[in-house]
């Protein structure tokens, strides 16, 4: 199409110049403007097709990861319960299977909660009801809850929470923010690696910092990780599980609260997510 337009342009241009050689300058000038417009149009078209492809690929990845994230815990729960029904197991084995199932149900609940919240945020149907509340208490509760599930061998989440930090915000949406940040840190850290959760009040602003010692985030991906469905790498060979909704929710909720989030490298390895409330 582009080639055809170019050939036409050159053909008509040379025809006009041949018929009226005195109008050479005009033909060249108008031709260049036309060529410029054509190239700009082609460039933007190309960009938008590329963007569309990327979005399509991300949606495909999302479908794959949601399939995996929904079906794996379901399969585990079903199998555990069928095992208890079919086999004559001792009490300890039964309890272990039931505890695993309860954890899987919580994982499913978190996933459904994230999907619902992300959809409501997208539709603008979520109103973010705000009130003043004790943010320290909320962060402590979440770190306590995730502590139990994150690792069996030793404490991995190391909370350093200044008591009594109060903020004005939506308690439910902010609890999703803190959960997503801490869960990500745990997920991308090695088994039993330390995850830091710090909360303090600095010059009247609440400051939340989540640090991990995982593989870190490459510089070129730091801006992209907050995009909806964005996940690093190929879905079929992924180490850490997830859907690509968590950080999208974090960004949207914090934007609504006029809070800033930044991500930088931890030393010697890992990432630091820092949230500053205004």
């Amino acid at each position, binding site marked *: 199409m582009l080639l055809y337009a170019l050939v036409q342009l050159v053909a008509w241009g040379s025809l006009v110049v041949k018929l009226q050689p005195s109008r050479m300058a005009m033909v060249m000038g108008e031709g260049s403007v036309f060529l410029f417009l054509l190239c700009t149009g082609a460039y933007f078209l190309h960009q938008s097709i590329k963007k569309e492809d990327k979005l399509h690929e991300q949606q495909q990845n999302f479908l794959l990861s949601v399939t995996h994230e929904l079906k*794996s815990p379901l399969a585990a729960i079903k*199998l*555990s319960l069928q*095992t208890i029904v079919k086999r004559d197991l001792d009490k300890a*084995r039964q309890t272990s299977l039931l505890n695993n199932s309860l954890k899987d149900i919580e994982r499913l609940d978190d996933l459904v909660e994230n999907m619902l919240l992300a959809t409501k945020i997208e539709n603008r149907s979520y109103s973010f009801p705000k009130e003043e509340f004790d943010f320290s208490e909320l962060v402590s509760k979440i770190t306590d809850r995730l502590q139990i599930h994150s690792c069996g061998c030793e404490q991995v989440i190391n909370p350093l929470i200044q008591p009594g930090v109060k903020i004005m915000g939506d308690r439910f949406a902010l609890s999703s923010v803190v959960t997503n940040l801490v869960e990500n840190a745990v997920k991308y850290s090695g088994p039993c690696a330390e995850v830091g959760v710090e909360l303090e009040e600095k010059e009247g602003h609440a400051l939340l910092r989540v640090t991990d010692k995982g593989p870190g985030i490459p510089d070129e991906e730091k801006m992209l990780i907050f995009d909806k469905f964005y996940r690093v790498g190929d879905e079929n*060979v992924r180490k850490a599980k997830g859907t690509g909704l968590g950080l999208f929710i974090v960004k949207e909720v914090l934007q609504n609260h006029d809070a800033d989030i930044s991500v930088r490298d931890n030393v010697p390895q890992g990432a630091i997510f820092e949230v500053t409330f205004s």
Partner: protein
Amino acid sequence: MIIMQQKLRILLVEDEDHLLDAIKLNLELEGYKVHAVKDGKTALKVFKEERFNLIILDVMLPEMDGFQVCETIRLENSEVPILFLTAKNTSEDRVMGLKKGADDYLVKPFNLEELILRVGILVKRSMKSDDLKELNSYKIGDKTIYFNSFELKQDDGTIVPLTKKETMLLKLLIERKNEAVSREQILETVWNYDVYPSTRTIDNFILTFRKYFEPDQKNPVYFHSIRGVGYKFTDIHS
């Protein structure tokens, strides 16, 4: 029935901890010996070192996906049954799995009973093909090995007794005629990992075999050492 006296072995590849535990528990209760791993690369490493009657593979795995693992296994082994156990449920995924060389495909969440039945069928199939290969005797040159009586009949009719391990190693090498058999596979099948002999021990066995069968021990025609891999048996008469 030397090989079949051992427990049937299953390689289970699944990255979800809870699912892995529950499947492993059930298979063990059914009497199988299960080696469970959590990613594709480890699965391939383990597969190269041990022998299995069945491989149960998830598709979405860290490091290397299940389809790739299946394809790589099929490059060197076309017999071991492979069962895909995965959340991917479109017909394209099923076709892809079967095209890569899988024998069966089960979608999550599955029924325990169905899993056990399918595992049973696949394992039985692998045993049948083993049965076909079951040997009572084998002739190398003018000498005949009797696997059931642990004896070697020489060309002059004299009988030389063989040890159990010698018989098992001979059987393994003969069954996999013209194929290189790794030291790990030999250790797994003949010694069943209950003792860890040095590689020297296997070398000594091979030296004994050469003494029994080779016309010229320095230039073996039957029992070959493959550097860095293991050993190979070739039968010039067949």
